[in-house]
């Protein structure tokens, strides 16, 4: 029997692939790369929002933000665990991240410059992440799909919290409303970039679609996000900074302009506003913690030795 043909048939029939099933090396590699990048994104994503925990303007907002950033660490943990079911090692994946050999979502290379950014990240960035991730709850690899169900539920909660912060700020002072609009102006285009380059330029889309790792194209998801977000922006009372944005009754969708793809490639290429800072922060935390991890391992080994002596 041809294992690869059998695998292709199973995936095409929407059967879930489990860790002990045979899978093509390319499928395994693609998944490890995608899950690791997703895990790295959660971990790097702790920084832009974590930037505001110490300054959160009310104790309730501080608790919400700290809990959210904590959830991101938790998401990183389950995703690394999902990657480990494919034979990857968390320590090696972390090394690849801090050596700049594996990427994370480029959106986190933008700075958070006001408290409105905390709300806008929840609303737009988590909103875009949900559009990208909901289809992954049906992705062909079982452990990844199951992790995504839980993550998507928590992300949707974060999105609602972010939107609620913005609604509250919009009902506050003029300075707060201006702060929200300014933040939306900065984050709108990077949020659209989160779906990746246009389909015509996306290198990985076709194969990942065939393997049912990816379920929708970048452009389909981007359209879905815009359609979902425009009414929310209207309700909030902010203007999305796109002069081409309008309803197209014929298509039944909103038409919208293109982000600056040169900026996108610049940020992806490592030259975004915060790429170096984000990696340096992660690297420092990892290096500063080295002696702690060594101590924990040494203690565990001594304990095991002592138990053996007793036995």
């Amino acid at each position, binding site marked *: 029997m041809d294992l690869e043909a059998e695998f292709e048939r199973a995936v095409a029939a929407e059967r879930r692939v489990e860790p002990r099933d045979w899978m093509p090396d390319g499928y395994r590699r693609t998944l490890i790369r995608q899950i690791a990048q997703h895990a790295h994104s959660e*971990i790097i994503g*702790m*920084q832009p929002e*974590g930037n505001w*925990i*110490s*300054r*959160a*303007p*009310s*104790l*309730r*907002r*501080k*608790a919400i933000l*700290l*809990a959210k*950033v*904590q959830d991101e*660490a*938790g998401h*990183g*943990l389950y995703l*690394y665990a999902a990657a480990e079911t494919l034979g990857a090692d968390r320590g090696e994946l972390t090394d690849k991240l801090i050596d700049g050999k594996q990427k994370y979502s480029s959106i986190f290379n933008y700075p958070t410059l006001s*408290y409105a950014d905390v709300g806008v990240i929840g609303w737009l960035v988590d909103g875009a992440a*949900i559009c990208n991730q*909901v289809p992954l*709850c*049906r992705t062909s690899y079982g452990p990844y*799909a199951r992790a995504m*169900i839980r993550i*998507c539920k928590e992300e949707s*909660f974060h*999105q*609602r*919290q972010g939107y609620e*912060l913005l609604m*509250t*700020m919009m*009902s*506050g*002072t003029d*300075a*707060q409303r201006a702060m929200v609009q300014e933040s939306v102006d900065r984050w709108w285009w990077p949020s659209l970039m989160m779906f990746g380059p246009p389909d015509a330029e996306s290198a990985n889309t076709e194969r990942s679609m065939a393997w049912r790792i990816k379920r929708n194209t970048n452009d389909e998801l981007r359209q879905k996000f815009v359609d979902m977000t425009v009414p929310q922006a209207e309700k909030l009372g902010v203007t999305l900074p796109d002069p081409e944005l309008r309803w197209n009754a014929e298509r039944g969708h909103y038409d919208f302009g293109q982000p600056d793809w040169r900026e996108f490639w610049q940020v992806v290429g490592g030259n975004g506003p915060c790429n170096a800072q984000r990696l340096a*922060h*992660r690297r*420092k*935390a990892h290096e*500063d*913690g*080295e*002696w*702690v991890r*060594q*101590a*924990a*391992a*040494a*203690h565990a080994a*001594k304990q095991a030795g002592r138990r053996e002596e007793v036995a």
Partner: protein
Amino acid sequence: MNADNATDSVYDGLVDQEDAHWAFGTGFHEPLAGVDRAVPDVDRADLTAYCLMLGDDALVLSQRLAEWCSRAPELEEDVALANIALDLLGQARLLLTRAGEVEGAGRDEDALAYLRDEREFRNVHLAEIECGPFAGGDFATTIARLLVFSSWKLAQYSRLRGSADPVLAAVAAKGLKELAYHRDHAAQWTVRLGDGTEESHRRMRAGLHRVWPFLDELFTAHPVELRLPGVAVDPAGLRSEVEDVLAEVCRAAGLELPDAAPAARVAGKAGRDGVHTEAMGYLLAEMQHLHRSLPGAKW
């Protein structure tokens, strides 16, 4: 579970108003629902001050622990330290709310957290000093502080559970479970670091030395605490219990108890009197600046 239903429900989640899975009471839905809020027949200014002492201890240490977020040695520890910071923040919110209620001047938790000046904060120095991740400490120092603080608070809350103030009693009863976990977490790390490697042993010992001079203040009663018998806990009575716990943990960790002299007070005053260390001004400047920059804003 049907996969299609599972994914569809994620979108439903956006409008779903169910907060149940949100573990840390971020919505502040009355964790003390059903608790009698009657104010006992004592001096209100004293009781307000006492609630602030307890609330500020929790708030300020929470602020310090949250500094570790995204900087911990392992992801599991990021989650754990954030969890402890959230527990303390939850306690602080209940206590500051109670302080405002007893005071009766219309100040809520945020007015008390963000609009008081340094001299009006009544936390102990141990909560505010820098113990890492930034200058002034490292993970071992943070653990040393957490071990001392949570052992002391646990002893204090276990007595406060019997307070004549029903709200303080309820906060203490709820906080005890949390503090027991915090102490256990700190004790386990103290043992791991004390026993682990030469470097971790040296750092753990240095961490204990760093925090030990602040121990004495924890057992020094402020006049307010002595004027509220039956409501407040006299901290002098906690010393032997706390010292026994610390001695036991250090023994298990293979560490000697530090022989460090108590830090001198300033003209007899310390944190409970609103006289703080130099670190406190920076902590408050950072915590309060945004709230104060936008007066009248809604958050």
